[in-house]
């Protein structure tokens, strides 16, 4: 019996029981669409986490001052005061895998402009910072190397600070007071939003690190170094080179503990994506349960159908249908049920995912793979759960089947 005709027979049989076929498909439709929605929500979460981490800068490494031992007691991380701006210069000079580096000094302070005041974080860096983080100004410019050398009182503002201090004014060229000291505003940064697991990046004032160290904090050490590697695959090289250099510069003996530690962006990305993957897997497997329930629904209906059509099977056998013709007929029926259910489920799932991203503002990501997988999965369910009823039909005795009332 040719396949085209078998398909036609299957369609006819399914059309004869429209309501029943529809309800059976509903199980598969719900299963497939929920799998697609769940996976796209999970994948969307993963993609947005990755994006946020990427927004912190590319190929980035953070060198942070480590803990200091005082009288055998280890102090908190960052308590060591051994890192200096000279370390940064040395890294730039002697580590070939490093492209850019900036000292990192942070503090916080009150800001005043006219009647308005605001408290925000202060970040002292060199102009390399803007390159490493790939962060541009929306108006004005960033400060320059000569501002750093002269410890000039210039500042660049995040959008949140602008919103609080200059609700109706252009801040460029205005003077604000930071901890009582007047600073000239030279630029406003593009909004970056909330950092992944961190503070609002727009609520910050960025000034030359020399200015922050000499004029505000009056200290000579820096709290960290932000470094960008030449390329993605040189991140670990950069890490090694920096470690070696800093150990030498800080005169740490062989076997001694580092007084700094280096965190890379890839570490963070890996952690975050593995969490997102676990979430996707969890959501997907919960949804798959409904898919399996749908499959059992197909088996159930096919069993009923075989019983109901026993006489038809007998007639077909008497007219020359071989066992495999009957097997094929019922398999195709189950297959068509699950395939159509799967296709409708995909359409519903994709539009459901789009609806979620529109209404709930969750980012969703529909991958081609998840669609191909769900088509494959629903067809496999049809074949798997259709096989038993179909084999039952194929093994019927034609004489008994013909006599069946």
């Amino acid at each position, binding site marked *: 019996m*040719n396949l085209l*005709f078998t398909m036609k027979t299957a369609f006819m049989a399914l059309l*004869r029981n429209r309501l029943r076929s529809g309800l059976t498909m509903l199980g598969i439709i719900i299963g497939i669409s929920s799998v697609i929605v769940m996976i796209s929500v999970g994948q969307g979460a993963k993609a947005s986490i990755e994006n946020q981490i990427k927004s912190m800068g590319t190929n980035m490494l953070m060198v942070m001052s480590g803990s200091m031992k005082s009288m055998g007691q280890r102090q908190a991380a960052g308590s060591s005061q051994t890192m200096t701006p000279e370390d940064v210069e040395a890294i730039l000079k002697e580590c070939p895998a490093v492209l850019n580096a900036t000292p990192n000094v942070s503090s916080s302070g009150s800001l005043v402009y006219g009647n308005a005041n605001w408290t925000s974080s202060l970040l002292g860096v060199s102009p390399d910072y803007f390159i490493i983080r790939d962060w541009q100004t929306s108006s004005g410019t960033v400060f320059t190397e000569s501002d750093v050398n002269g410890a000039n009182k210039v500042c660049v503002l995040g959008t949140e600070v602008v919103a609080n201090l200059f609700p109706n004014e252009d801040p460029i060229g205005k003077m604000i007071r930071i901890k009582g000291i007047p600073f000239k505003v030279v630029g406003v940064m593009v909004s970056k939003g909330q950092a992944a697991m961190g503070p609002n990046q727009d609520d910050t004032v960025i000034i030359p690190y020399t200015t922050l160290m000499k004029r505000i904090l009056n200290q000579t050490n820096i709290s960290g170094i932000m470094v960008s590697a030449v390329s993605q695959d040189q991140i670990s090289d950069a890490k090694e080179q920096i470690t070696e250099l800093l150990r030498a510069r800080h005169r740490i003996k062989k076997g001694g503990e580092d007084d700094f530690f280096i965190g890379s962006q890839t570490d963070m990305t890996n952690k975050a994506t593995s969490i997102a993957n676990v979430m996707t897997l969890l959501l997907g497997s919960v949804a798959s349960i409904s898919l399996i329930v749908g499959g059992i629904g197909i088996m159930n209906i096919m069993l009923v159908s075989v019983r109901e059509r026993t006489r038809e099977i007998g*007639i077909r056998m008497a007219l020359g249908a071989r066992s495999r013709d009957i097997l094929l007929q019922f398999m195709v029926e189950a297959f068509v049920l699950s395939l159509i259910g799967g296709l409708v489920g995909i359409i519903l799932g994709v539009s459901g995912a789009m609806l979620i991203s529109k209404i709930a503002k969750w980012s969703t990501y529909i991958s081609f793979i998840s669609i191909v997988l769900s088509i494959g999965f629903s067809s496999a369910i049809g074949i798997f759960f259709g096989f038993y009823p179909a084999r039952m039909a194929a093994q019927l005795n034609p*004489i008994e089947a*013909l006599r069946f009332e």
Partner: protein
Amino acid sequence: MAPIIHVENLTKIYRMGDVEVHALRKVSADVEPGEFVAIMGASGSGKSTFMNILGCLDTPTSGQYHLDGKDVSTLSRDELAAIRNRKMGFIFQQFNLLTRTTALENVELPMMYNNTSNREREEKALEALRIVGLADRAHHYSNQLSGGQQQRVAIARALVNNPSIILADEPTGNLDSRTSVEVMEILQRLNQDKGITIVMVTHEKDIAQFTQRNVFFRDGKILFDREVEDRLDAQQVLATIPETLEEELLENGKETK
């Protein structure tokens, strides 16, 4: 000529729990090509079992069955299915058409299982419907047809693959007397014009009179096997039966006047 059906010592034993039921006890018989045979007997006499084996729907416990010179008593399920498809046509008491399927599709059904091309299938099916006089009903659903018409569709289905044998299991059992004769007329015509061998089970003595030979079963054995003496011609009989009940009543009215 060699017999088209040759059975020798055909035995069929069913097991019902611990009890053995001997449905057929060493039955031997021949059917010549072009014969029209009626099989008769009470229920439980073994005639249904005999028909099932002749129809390759069942296999004997022992004994031999040669169909067209070929031993078919030991063939597999699928081989038997192929023989049923190519050499046999079946007619049942219950018509056994597929419901919610058109007459044409019903007649096409046997050709679905032997790779006939779409066009040839339709042509042959229409031709078969023409032979039974139902070409104009080809696109009617089987359940919209009367009993007699359904049985004629079933006959068309039985002859569409040009079988050498048609096996009919009480084909008139569910029909009134006039349509019964109509069905017998078609069977006689197929038997005479196309030379198709017909083996038919029937309960009714007058229906058996339309055949050439009556075989009577009892207790799994052939009780007697004889030629029909004054064989009826269905066409002549039809001419004497009024077409409708009203006419029949009118006829009777005239006589009483």
